[in-house]
Structure formats: C-alpha cells, structure tokens
C-alpha cells in the first residue's frame, strides 16, 4: 500500500520504515493517526540527522499505535539550505515539544509551529550544535 505519492520503503532501518517526500507529510500525518487500520496515535520520538555530504536533513518520526500495537518509522528529507518542514503538532501535540528540540539543536524550521523557540540553549545562542559543521570556541579537538 502506498501511503502517499512518492513514498518508498526506507531501507536499513531495523523497524518498518517508510520514506515520504516532505510535501506529502502534512496530508499524511492525520491519515496515519485516524485511518482505522493504522491508528498511529503515539509519536514516540522525533529527531533529525544531518547528512552533510548529501546536503540534506533526514527527519525521523517513530510512531506507535496503542490500539493495534504496531509501529512505524516515518522519514522525510529536506535540504540543508532551506530546512522548512510542516509541523505535525496539530496531529500529535507532543510534536510541539519534540520539534523545538530539533530546531534548537539541528536548526530544522517547522512551518506553522506556534511557539518555535530554543529549548535547551539560550535564545541568543549562535548556530545549532548537532549539525556536523558546527564549531564554537569551547569545542575540544579530537585526539590525533
């Protein structure tokens, strides 16, 4: 079953995983939660990976259904230059919280997020530390 146009199986994940184009995410999220056969009502975790060599961020959504007891890992990619993703906070409210972490540490921008603020770091912090090209003065060099 194709979840959304352009979706494909995400290989090399140890759980059922689907990769969808970022344009399909906003329409797909409510379907995943409400479809009687799917009912993914719990967004367990959301995070981002910085694939700097490919120039993209990969976003991961670990979903679980407390109704059916099955799980799904949803991934999508955005370019590093313009990392704008629609928020899924309207579908899974916890995403408001988890997306703020991804914004703070990875610099992913969530379109439609009502309260996109830094979470752990101060508001005037420069850069996003989990990016692979992040540098600051206090970072220690790796031992040679």
């Amino acid at each position, binding site marked *: 079953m194709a979840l959304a146009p352009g979706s494909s199986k995400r*290989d090399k994940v*140890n759980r059922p995983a689907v990769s969808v184009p970022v344009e399909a995410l906003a329409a797909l999220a409510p379907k995943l939660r409400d479809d009687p056969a799917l009912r993914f009502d719990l967004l*367990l975790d959301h995070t981002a990976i*910085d694939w700097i060599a490919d120039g993209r961020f990969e976003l991961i959504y670990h979903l679980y259904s407390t109704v059916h007891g099955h799980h799904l890992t949803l991934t999508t990619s955005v370019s590093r230059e313009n990392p704008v993703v629609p928020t899924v906070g309207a579908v*899974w*409210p916890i995403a408001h919280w988890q997306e703020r972490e991804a914004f703070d540490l990875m610099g992913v921008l969530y379109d439609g997020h009502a309260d996109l603020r830094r*979470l752990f770091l101060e508001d005037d912090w420069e850069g996003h530390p989990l990016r692979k090209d992040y540098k600051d003065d206090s970072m220690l060099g790796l031992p040679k």
Partner: protein
Amino acid sequence: MSVSLRTLNDVVRPPTTAASALATQEYFVNMGPQHPIAHGSLRLVLRLDGETVKEVIPVPGFVHRGIEKMCEHLGPRQIVHLTDRMDYLSALMNNWALAMTVERAAGIAVNERIETIRTLMAELQRLQSHVLWWGVLGMDLGAFTPFLYGFREREVIGEIFEETIGARLTMNYIQPGGLMYDIHPGFARKVKDVARYIRPIIDEYDTLLSGNVILQERLRNIGILSPEKAVALGCTGPVVRASGVPYDLRKVEPYGVYGKAEFDVVVGTVGDCWDRYCVRMEEMRQSLRIIEQLIDNIPEGPHMVVKYGARIRIPEGIHYGQVETARGVFGVTIVSDGKGEAPYRMHFRSPSFNNLWAVTALAPGWRIADLIAIQSSLDLVIPDIDR
C-alpha cells in the same frame, strides 16, 4: 512560509496595569531553576492569576551536557557510561537500552544468564526508583517522614548493587555483549532477604501515607489526564498507565526474560494524581513478584560473550531500541554510517523529556500547591530531560 522564531521574552510579557484598585491582574513567577520540587535544575515560568496557574512554560536546559554530540566521538562501550547520567534512577535500564540496541544491530546473541541478571537488576532498580519517588512525593506534599523511610529502603537495594557492581548510582553495569562483572556469590541470598524485607514495608507505606486524608485530598481528582490526551501528549510509563492505557514494553514487546515471568500491567481508571500514585505503589509489588520468580533460576554461563576490548561494529543504517524504565519508554536511535565504532548520530528518547510536556496541559486551572502535586506525580528526573 510562516516560520516565525520566538524567544522567551515574547512569551513572558510584563504584567498589565490593573484597571482599578480591585481588579486582578496576571503576572509571571519563576519556579526554579532552584526549587525543591524540581529535584534538580528545572525552571518553570508560571503565569498566575492570584494563586491560580494559568499557564506553565517549562524552560529546561540547565543540565544540558550535549550527550548526543559527545556520542558521535565515542564507541558503544563508552556511550554506556553516558546513558547512566541521564535518568540516574534508571541507570541500569538505560544501559540495557543501549546494550540491546547495539547487540541487535551488531548481531550479538547474549545468553540466558545475562538476560536473567539484567532483568533482575532492572526490576531491583525500578523498585528502588519507586521507593525513592514515594519518599520524595511525601516530602513534596509536606510530609517529611516518608522521605526518611524511602531513603532507608533505597539504601538496602543500593547495597546489593554495590556488592556486585561496585557503584551505587552511575553503574555502567550492563554492557553491549553482557555484563561488566559476574554477580556476587551472595547475590541470590541477599536479593531474597531484601524481597522478604521490603514486601511488608510497602504495606507499611500504605498505612503511613496512602490512607492519609490530607494526601488523598491533595491527589484525588487533581490533574486528570484522559487516555487520549495522555497518548497525544507522548506520555509513557506509569503516567500513561494511570490513565488506563496498558502500554508497558515489558508486556507488549517483551525483552530480557520478561516473557517468562508472570506479572500484571497496572493501570488506573481516572488518570488523576492519585491513580499515578497507586500505579507506582502496585508496580513495586509487581517488581517484587518478578524478582521472586527469577531469583532461584539464574542459569549458568559466562557473563560476557564479547571479548573485552574487541571492536563492536554497527552496520550502516538506523537502529532503534527501547526499554521500559521506571519513568517510561527510553528509546535509543543509533544512526551508523558503517565507518568506525562511533555512531554517525545518536538520539535518546527519554521518558522525562516527554512526560514533562504533560505538565503544561495538566496544571492550568489548578493552584500552585496542586502544581506541586502534579509534578511530583509525574516523577521527573531533570538530567533525563536535558540530556
């Protein structure tokens, strides 16, 4: 595009001037970062109308150590030491989550002895964590005695850990491929002694605190979380179970030897602070039940199946693993590019981080004193939030 970034100053507004001498006005008060209820450094900004909480704005980050970034330079055995330092009251379970994910990814099969000892240790620690939570909840609500009782029993279990592991808090015991050390020769006897000792103690806890009318008044029907809301807010562990959702990884995705042990998933009916209290009280007894079933049947075998110092290579891909800690689902995402030992990216899904968000939905409308009860019933560990 409608991405607008905000700062804390946009959220916390200066108080408005009152229209008349009798009119009330809303104001903001900082609870924390140093506040006894937080059990660590957590700042909550409260929007108040008199004593009534209108809004809670959590500002975490005071214990943020950048563990995920550090992991990108460390091998799996070294990362174990960092998992302890998130939820230090579930240190062994956090170790286990990482060890299990690494083992599954690298194709390491551990024996029955290792799995049994891991399960026993995890349940001992769940018991220890809940005992401490009980004591601290009493103190948060103004009863100091439970705190002393809770610490007394925590000590007894801590001695078991100390004897085998040599550490009491950050234990690094469960390693990818097995256990750091074999159990102490007197482990089984001592665990049985402790189980015999603690069982009546939990009943004593009930007589001491649970039946207390003040405690019940402060917990019953306070901070009600419906099952749908609990799931939508990403709650796991005793918090979601108290709302009536029987989501316990030990049952729905058995790992270790939980499949062999008989125990019940404890669920609540109302989802208020009192249910969260009762769920944890009963979980202590269920943990004892699991311990008593397993302690006589620890199989023989080596306690480590991988050579010390051998490199553990994680194949390319995304590897996710999770365990049920004392606070909920602790998930580990290892992203490997197949090169070297260190993961390309590491992410931890910590239960306290997600459970904290529930406080923003639970507290509005209640008094400040109820916020204390609500937060105490969520059982947050601050380093687990900040990572």
